[in-house]
């Protein structure tokens, strides 16, 4: 039996009150409830406050470059696809620097579970606007306020037929846990955008701001209808829906990759002598 103790990691270097603390707590609980052993899965992260996540629980971890979480996770998943591969990223990390990889990870439907700690700000670098920052928000590097329309990651994901699209909120722990578990259970690529208050730099999107707006998507919502999902994904402002926005059962990339269908790549032992024999016959093709 796994217990929370088994997941003890380094002491978080986040600010007191940061939404990341709740996410970490709930995440560990979800893992325990799913009875996942620490050594059996991997968390890939980038650089940012969110990027530090895997250090704070006991797990296999690849804390890579800013923005490059998904390619690394894809490489791992393709190599060892019976292993649970989780990606944790910041909003700048994933929607800014790494935007291109998100698009293509969704296209592949690689079985990686992506959790974006979306604080609508660059936290670690001290408060610049992120792609999800609200229009008009002034920062030290946006002297005229943010001039671009914020990126809506959920609409983007629905548009690209992402196979699992959800929004959760760090301040709603029970619901967050439910979403984390669902995302992990989902076969294909899952994108969970977690609203995460940054108490230090984001003075607009505070706990209070979110609290006033978030609501659980109504019962009977058809998360399999892409048009309904698109409409729901656009809701933002006075009312912010939490829940599974969209879901489908497209085949995953690893299921479609013939050479790993039968066995994970990493389990396919390399028999040097045997391969040399086959190379010998391949060389025959060159005569």
């Amino acid at each position, binding site marked *: 039996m796994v217990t929370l103790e088994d997941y003890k990691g*380094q002491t978080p270097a986040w600010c007191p009150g940061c939404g990341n603390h709740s996410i970490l707590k709930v995440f560990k609980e979800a893992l325990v409830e799913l009875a996942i*052993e*620490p*050594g*059996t*899965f*991997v968390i*890939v992260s980038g*650089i940012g406050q969110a990027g*530090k996540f*895997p*250090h704070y629980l*006991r*797990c*296999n*971890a*690849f*804390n*890579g*470059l800013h923005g*490059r979480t*998904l*390619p*690394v*996770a*894809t*490489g*791992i*998943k*393709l*190599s*060892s696809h019976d*292993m649970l591969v989780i990606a944790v990223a910041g909003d700048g990390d994933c929607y800014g620097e790494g935007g*291109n*990889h998100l*698009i*293509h990870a969704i296209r592949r439907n690689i079985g990686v579970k992506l959790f974006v700690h979306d604080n609508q700000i660059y936290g670690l670098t001290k408060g610049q606007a992120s792609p999800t920052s609200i229009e008009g928000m002034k920062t030290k590097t946006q002297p005229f306020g943010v001039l671009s329309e914020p990126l809506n990651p959920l609409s983007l994901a629905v548009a690209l037929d992402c196979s699992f699209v959800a929004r959760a909120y760090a301040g709603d722990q029970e619901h967050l846990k439910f979403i984390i578990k669902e995302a992990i259970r989902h076969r294909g690529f899952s994108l969970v955008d977690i609203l995460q208050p940054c108490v230090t730099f984001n003075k607009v999107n505070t706990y209070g701001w979110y609290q006033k707006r978030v609501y659980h998507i109504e019962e009977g919502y058809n998360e399999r209808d892409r048009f309904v999902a698109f409409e729901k994904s656009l809701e933002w402002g006075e009312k912010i829906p939490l829940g599974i926005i969209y879901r489908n059962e497209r085949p995953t990339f690893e299921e479609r*990759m*013939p*050479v*790993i269908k039968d066995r994970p*790549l*990493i389990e*396919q032992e*390399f028999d*040097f002598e045997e*391969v*040399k024999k*086959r*190379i*010998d016959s*391949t*060389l025959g093709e*060159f*005569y």
Partner: protein
Amino acid sequence: MDYTIKIGGEAGQGIQTIGDTISKVFSRMGYHVFTHQDYESRVRGGHNFYQVRLSETMVTSSRTQVDILVALDKESIKRHERELGPEGIIVYDASSLKERHDKPHFLDVPFNELSLKAGGSPIMANMVAIGAILGMIGINGDVLHSIIKETMGNKGEAILKQNIDAFIAGRDYAKANCLRCSFFSAPSSKPKMLIDVNEAIGLGAIASGCKFYTAYPMTPSTGILNFFSSKAEEYGIVVEQAEDEISAINMALGASYAGVRSMTGTSGGGFCLMVEGISLAGMTEIPIVVALAQRPAPATGLPTRTEQADLFLALHAGHGEFPRVIFAPGDPEQAFYLTNKAFDLSNKYQIPVFILTDQYLSDSRWTYLGFDLDALTYRAYRLKGDERVPETYKRFAYTEDGVSPLAIPGKGKYIVVVDSDEHDEEGHIIEDGETRRLMVEKRLFKKLPFIKKEMESPRLYGSERPDIVVIGWGSTYGIIKEAVDELAKRHSIAMLHFSEVYPFPYYTEGFMEALKRAKLTICVEQNGTNQFARLLKAETGFDIPVKINRYDGRPFLLEELIEVLNGHIGRL
């Protein structure tokens, strides 16, 4: 017998089919072949050529002088007539070129007409041309029958017969009409292997346990991706075309972290995009092999031409300081073995290893009797399975030689943590200076001397105590070798060729002695700023006084290089 056949024409006219086919015929008949290609960055039109040299002895470069020019368009005659040797013949189809040449060194072969007569399509005109070439040299072409069968086997008997008929028509027409043809074919011998460097790298990688190749297409590195793709099913390799080069290297690093030997390949601009990932490999000590096929730059440059100007980029790619190894094979054979060594060193020392080639090498084919598979090495450096890895496993444990045991994540109770931040032995972020210092020492200083010891000295070829030493690296191997062979008839001369380019080997005495006692040393490079000569100077203090550079995107050709070398020798 040492003939050069040049096929010229527009992109899309089938130059490559003709060139590939006749090279295959020659090599299978046991001749030695060397081919090289010259083409534009377009898919149809323009001016391309394919040059095939065949001989009964080893040939490793292209010559300036052409013996048979197959001109598929007027432009080919205009550009290449002057390259014709005294006995040379230009083969062309007057009716399709709509121009007739009455000079004696022209042979009009009605490619189109003969192919139509054989019941064929325009593609079969190329078969007629192939027939004409073989006919002129006096090759009957039984070998061709089987080659046609192998490549077109699935297209049905009728097509097959048409092709062979077209071939025969061309052959017989040329035999009958080329009265001036003085070519002869040496007796054929044991079939040779005809291979290019991208195939050799792919094979070397597969033989080294590489199971994951991801790349973004870029000339001239795409050949490696093609080769891996073609063998993916047979060898069970995951091959993925990434969305960009940044993704390619990060995916490959992910796979390598997960325990799979992986590789990526690219060219100039794509390599630039991988530079941050290379630094990540350096920090996380994840083994990775990167093929860098050079082409003339900066920026997009001349995408289908050749250059050797990315040595310094490869040497310093990635911010910060970490060890790396750079190989620059001189031919497919070296590429095969060096790729194997690349995987071995990369996994042994947990470092990035680069294999530098270029367009010239990528688009050349060479013949060999075969490769010696027993010369390959495979050592599994990974810790595997629960039983051997303790629960207290530390990914970056301090060790004597700086190399920490490398375990596979997800296979036990232990965990494998890697971090792009500076980290402690367990892989967790640190801030203190002392751990930083220890990690720099582990990662860099401790490993370096061991890595240096692995490097082979450069190859000294020719005179053992040469007066003249011609120095080269990478793709100039074949041409310098032949030039030295030729010049050795009158001079005490040798080639010093570096295929293991960095780090410089420890025991440099051997070749340094040759350099120091030589009366003349010359460095030949396909770039404008003498990158290798500068590296040699920085590493050994030896200043090569004479440099021969070419930076117009074209390779050196044999007679040209000999002439330039002779010029310098003459001034001795």
